[in-house]
Structure formats: structure tokens, C-alpha cells
């Protein structure tokens, strides 16, 4: 089976690699690019731990083949902070104790970042509904929702001209 050459942008960096077709985007990020912040919780598209942002959309990276990511722009959890400073969303998570073991957290951060970027006015019900695509075993979700509601303020400010 022949490798395929792809070119994509990850967290602002241009990447050129050759991959076997069956390699998932998650595996590409983790093993080839050593961006291990994106985690694998199930590899069959249910848990959401592997979520990254592709061309602005939150997607499950275990359900995308790397070859399908040719020409796209990806943001992973490693791309959310502003250098040394945590993003408003990350800071809110810390403030509200919205993570415990942290394994599901990267997938939730990218999902909520994508959601709030597009829907900064999202209310609690909408946030919960979107969050239902990410499984967390530690927190019971309440502090995550609180953190997202607080962080939304920063996204609303940004959305205003």
C-alpha cells in the first residue's frame, strides 16, 4: 500500500509529510508531529478526547484519515494558549476546577473554543448539548459548564467590532 504525500498547517506551522493511507489524523498529530496533547480515548468516534479544530470546525481526529487532512488548517490544544499565557477558556477551566485527570480536557477545550468562536452567545443549554459529545469521567461536567459560561464573556468581547 503506497504512502501519500500531504501538506497541511498545524498551529500555524506548515507541515509536509508522507503517510500511509490508514493512519488517522490523531495518529499523525501524536506520533509523527509529537503533538501528544490530543488524546485517544476510544478510537471509534464516541468519547471526543481526540477533538481538534479543522478549518474552524471541531472534529474527531480519530475519525479523519491523515490523507484527508491534506490542505487543511488545524488547531490542536497546543495551539490554544497565547505563548506563556493561558487563553481565557483555559484560565476559566483552572479557576472552576473543570478538570481532574485532564485526559478528556484537550478535546473539550478545542470543542468549546470552536463553539464559542462561532456562538459567543451560547446559553447553558446549548453548551451542555454540544458538550454531550465529549465524555468526562472525573468532573461530572458541572464545573466545565461553569467555566465555559465564564469564558464566553471574552469571546463576546472579541466578537464586538
Amino acid at each position, binding site marked *: 500500500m503506497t504512502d501519500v504525500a500531504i501538506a497541511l498547517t498545524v498551529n500555524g506551522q506548515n507541515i509536509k509529510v508522507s503517510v500511509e493511507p490508514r493512519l488517522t489524523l490523531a495518529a499523525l498529530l501524536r506520533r509523527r508531529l509529537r503533538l501528544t496533547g490530543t488524546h485517544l480515548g476510544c478510537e471509534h468516534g*464516541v468519547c471526543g478526547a481526540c477533538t481538534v479544530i479543522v478549518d474552524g470546525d471541531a472534529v474527531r481526529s480519530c475519525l479523519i484519515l491523515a490523507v484527508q487532512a491534506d490542505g487543511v488548517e488545524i488547531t490542536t490544544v497546543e495551539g*490554544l494558549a497565547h505563548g506563556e499565557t493561558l487563553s481565557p477558556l483555559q484560565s476559566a477551566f483552572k479557576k472552576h476546577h473543570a*478538570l481532574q485527570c*485532564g485526559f478528556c480536557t484537550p478535546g473539550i477545550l478545542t470543542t468549546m473554543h470552536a463553539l464559542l468562536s462561532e456562538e459567543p452567545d451560547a446559553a447553558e443549554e446549548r453548551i451542555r448539548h454540544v458538550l454531550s459529545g*465529549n465524555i468526562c*469521567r472525573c*468532573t*461530572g461536567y458541572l*464545573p466545565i459548564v461553569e467555566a465555559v459560561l465564564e469564558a464566553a464573556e471574552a469571546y463576546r468581547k472579541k466578537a464586538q467590532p
Partner: protein
Amino acid sequence: MKPFVGQSLERLEDDRLLRGEATFVDDIMLDDMIYLAVFRSPIAHGRIIRVDLTRAKEMNGVVAAFAGADFDALPKIPLRLAPVEGVARFLQRPIARDKVRYVGEPIAVVLATTPELAEDALELIDIEIDQLQPVVDWATASTPGALLFEENNTNVTARYTVSEGDMAKAFAAAAYTRRETFYCHRHTALPMETRGLVASWDETDGRMKIWGSTKVLWFNRKTTAEALGLEMDQVHMMGTDVGGGFGVRGELYPEDFLVPFVAKKIGRPVKWIEDRREHLMATNHSREITCDLEIACSREGLILGLRGTVYGDMGAYTRTNGGIVPVRTAQFLIGPYRIRALEFDVAIFVSNKTPVGTYRGPGRFEANFFRERLMDMAANDLGIDPAEFRSINLIREDELPYSTGKLVPYENPFIYDTGNYQTGLDRVLEAIGYDRLRALNGKEIDGRRHGVGLTCFVECSGGGPKENSRVVLERDGTISVHTGCSMIGQGLETALTQLAADTLGIEMKHIRVHNASTENLDEGFGTFASRGAIRGGNAVVDGAKNFIEQITRFANEVMDRAANDLQWANGAITDHDGTILYDLPTLAKYAAEREQSVEANGSYFSTGLTFSYGAHAAYVAVDPRTGAVEVLDYYAAEDIGVAINPMVVHGQLIGSIVQGLGGAFLDHLIYDEDGQFLTGTLADYLVPTATDFPKVRGESYGEKLASTNPLGVKGAGEGGIVGVAGAVANAVAAALRPLDVKITSLPLSPPLLWKSITETANQVSSN
């Protein structure tokens, strides 16, 4: 300086987790690393006729493949806990040899240059297994027929009876008795990170490094070294970030032997990462208990006696956790109640299913469900309000310390030390609005029946009497704290830093608490039974105090002062009048100049356990036509003595309640009558998501300190889960009482609940 203990501080571990810069075991990439995949039995019970690795070995990219006899040098997986007499006859070899006894049991391993190729190679392994009749429950285990271990001539691994008081008298005197059979279903912890190991053997150094182990690192290290024929100090268990433990991660499993054994044999680092399908069939299951329970009461509702039989389905083998789940179930049936006559017959058996181990609140979740359901039935029969019934029977403060009696054959009786159980219940009744809600019990509102239910609990934590620490002055003047307790996401790093900072009198930012690793401490004991704060915390405090002694002595020597001339105060070496003379960076410089290390060991030993306690209340609406249950409100209260970090403690409470709600309604590991495992993906094994239980509330408070440790702290990791099944089942039962539906079984899933409702309705209409 304001004490750090007691403050809801943001966690130190968060930054790296939020940035995606943590190191979980699958994040470890070593040069020359190869990947191991496990070939697992597709059938539940059978005799292995043939395992042919030829085609697998010939595949491009495969480095090696091993099975059966290749691992004969490895011992069986040892018992670590709950050595009930008899269970040790049913231990597991790390690889199946002549028989397979559960779907998922390892039969062979392959090693390849990528994980994809390793999985490809599994498909090239040819096996022949003669299927045998499976054992799937007590009925098939206890009647002559299929035997998992022919040499033992039984499937019952252990059977014992514990009793206290005069049961005959209790039942003779009782105006009321009731007997029911209850069932708690098989489910498990499902941490978001599956298991994994990286093992690296350095032939020149003669050292084996293992990443991915946790919970009881030193026990695991010692056992692994013995198994590999190495000295203990040749094997090191390295700390990593861990994606949740909940009791199932860190016990020794077959892979914990297979992976390092193969790494040593091949001489290249080996990585094995469990996929989710494997995880569901290979990581410890839990909770599957049947309990035949009978209560005896006076007409006024005083419980005179409680007796019954606990049947524990342990799966195919006794592993490290021994008989712990049924043992604890029997032990916790008494709960926080004054029950003088107790008698429990415990029957533990093997079946052709995945082996069973501890899962958060092992035995308690089950026992509380059984006992609290039966109590509500009694209360209802006697015409006594369930809250009142509990108040009558809760142990009063003036009755503590209270001995439960010897309810475990190999352990001393629990002595509940301090507590005010009624206050725990009162807090919950107030918060949920019990008086208002009980008026709605059974009422139909918009097509749904409403009900409120209660559970009271006592929870034991802090087991395994000792823990160690080491406190070290680093070159740059910061303090490193080493502990024997592993980080599994529970906020221990921050909690221990708070304790160390208070003891030393310095800012938290000057302290770094390291994850447990056998490289950093000679001996540690581990993270289990919510003991991190109790044992680990007290050990750190001891270590810090010893460090103060050490650094003061060092300063006196260096400055050529008489002993005790200089002092430690306000986080520095001071003169008698309190003038700060030398800070830590300065002292570190002096130590470096002298090539001296300033450090101290600490330890904490106590056989005293701690007992948190409290209550749960659930308010539900049940749609009798679909069996759907909505949890309209939930409240739990737990007295945990002292909260080192209240925010972290609250997080444990809420998280464990939601996990428990999953256990009551969703989580379910299902086998068919052939022992075939049916819930192999997360599409079939369901856990709570953000929309399932949005209304969950609770409080952790500190009214009564633990009397058995200097900090007064109790474990806070499990109280939130142990009362959930009892509370929601009682609420559902209260809601459906007008329909006369008997709730004795979990899970409360829509099809099963609907079945109970419909069967009752059919009975009623046919009468």
C-alpha cells in the same frame, strides 16, 4: 501567612494538562521502541488445542511473537488484598496455557515496528480451542457441571459466615420481618485513559524502567522484579500523568508481566497501549453482587437484626484484589446503623467472565443499595416515613465509638470513631426540600410519577497503614517533596503542596511535589481507598517537620553555632529574636559548596482508619410508559473532617455522584448465556454525558474531625458514589409505589424498569 490548607487554590497540575503538555504513558516515545499487541481469547471457556504463530512471525514488520510456554518462567499474578481463605487457589497466569476462561484472556503477544502492524499480525495467529460449557452465574457455578479449575473441583472460591449478636433472639422478638433478593449489575470504572505500559531494559546497566504503573508502585515493582528474576533495585516504576484510576488502574494485570518480560527478552523498549475494545474486556470489572437479605424490626421501626447471603461473581480468576468486592459488601451492610444482630454468609465464585476488582467504593455502592432498599420497604410496610425510620436507627453521637463487630474474617472490626450521622441526614433533607417532595411521592404530574429517595452511609478510608515521604533541598533553593502516593488526577499534587507549605512556612511556589516513582523513594505504599490526603498528607507533614530539624542542624553546623542556636521560623533560618539570617537559596548554595545534601525522610503510620459519613437524596420523575427516569434534583452531604482544598474536595463529590448515577442507570457490562461479551465499545457501554444529569448538588463539610490522624482529615474520594444507587432506587420505588412496582435490581435502565412496571401491571390485572 494565611494557611494554605483550607483554601480553594487553583491546582498546580492544571497548567500542563490544559496546554496538552502532560505526559501520559502513550506520550512516551523512546528510540528503537516497538509495539506489543495482545491476542485475546474470543471464547469464554475452552481448552487450548493449538496456537500457531508461524504466519504472524513471518509478517513484514513483526519482530517477534510469543505464546503459552514462552512465558512459563513467569509466576501467577499474586494476591495483594482480601486473602479470604480459598481464593488463592484460583490465581491467573499472565498468559493462558491449557485453558481459556474468559473472553479477552491473553493467549499470545506479537511485537512489531508500528501499532498498526502489530494489530495486523494478530489476524495471522491461528488458534484451535475446544469450547467448554460456560459458567455465567451462581446457578451454573454452584451446580455440578462446568468447572473452571478442574483441579479445585469447585467454582466456589471461598465461603464464610460472619456474625455478631444474637440473631435468633432478634428474629424471635421481631414484630416485623421481610426478606428480598437484590441484584447489583456488573459495571466498571471506565477511566478515559485506557491502560498502557512502556518497558525499557538496559542490558549494560541491568535496569528495567517501566512507565504506566500506578496505585501501588512499590508492590508492583517488587512483584515485577521477582517475576523477572531481578533484584528490586534493578526495576523502577516511573511516574506519569494518569487519566483516572478509580480503583481499576494500577493493580497488576497479565500485561504488567508480559510487557517487561518481553522487553527484557528482546532488548528493545516495548510499548503496549490498550485500545478501548480491549479495555472493556480486559480491565477489571466490578460490582456484580446478588444479595438475599432479611430484616427484623420492632413495630416502632427499630432494626433488631439483619441477615443474608452475599453472592460475589468474581469473574474467571482471583487477581490482586482477592475477594474484596463481596467481602466489603457484607461488611458495609450495617452502614451507619445500630444493628446489634448481624449474620452474613458470603459465597464467592468464579465465572467465565472478566476478573473482578475494586471500583470506587467497592462493596459499598452495592451494600448501601441492598440495605437502603430493604429499609424503605420496611418503613413503608410499617407506615413510618423513610427519613424517620433512618433517624430511629442511625447510630447516635453518644454511641460512638461504635464497633461493627467482626464482619471480615481476616480483619479487625471497624470502629466508627467520630461522627454525627443525624446531622448528615438533616443537611440533605433540608437541601433537597424533603418535606415538600415527599408529599409528591407517587403523584402523577404531566404523565410522570414523582418520588424522593434517601440513603445514609458511612465510608471507610485511609487503609494500608503506612506512607513515606522525602523532602529535599534542591540546588536552586526550591524544595522537592517525594511521596509514595501516585497522582491519578485527584489533585494530590496541590493538596500535598499546601500541606508542605504550611508546615515549612514558605510560599507554595517554592515547593514541587513529584509524582510517585520508585526512583525517588525507597519505599512507598500508594493511592487507594482515598488515602492520599490521610496517609500521604500526614507523611508529608512529618517529612517537612523532619526537614526543618535537618536544615536547622545544617545551618547551625555551617555557621559553627551551638546546636539549637539558630531556628527555623517564617520559612527561613532565623536568630533567637526572629531576624531572618539565611533563606533557602542561600542555604542551598552552602550545601552545594560542601557537596552536602539536605533532606529528610518522613513517614506516617497508623492502623486507625477514618470514617466519613453522610447522606444522599434523589428526586426523580419516572415515565411509566417508557421506563425513562429523569433526575430532577440530587443532593449529597459528606462530613470529611478537614478539606485541604475545598474546591478539589467538592470536585470529588460531584464527580463521584455523576459516576454513581451512571452506575445506577447507564453503565452495564453484558454477557450472553455463552459467556460471550456483548458490550465491547462505547456505543454499547454507556456512561453519563453532559446532558444526562445536569442537576447534581452537594456539600462536603467538616463537623467531626477524624480522630485517627493528626490532620483530622478523612478520605473524600468515594463518599459521593457509595450512596447513589440506594438514593435513586428508593426515589424510583417511591414514585412507582401506587403501581406496586418492586425495585430490587439494577440498573434502572428504561427497558428493565418498564419490564418491572409491566409485569406488575399484568399480575395485578390477572388477579
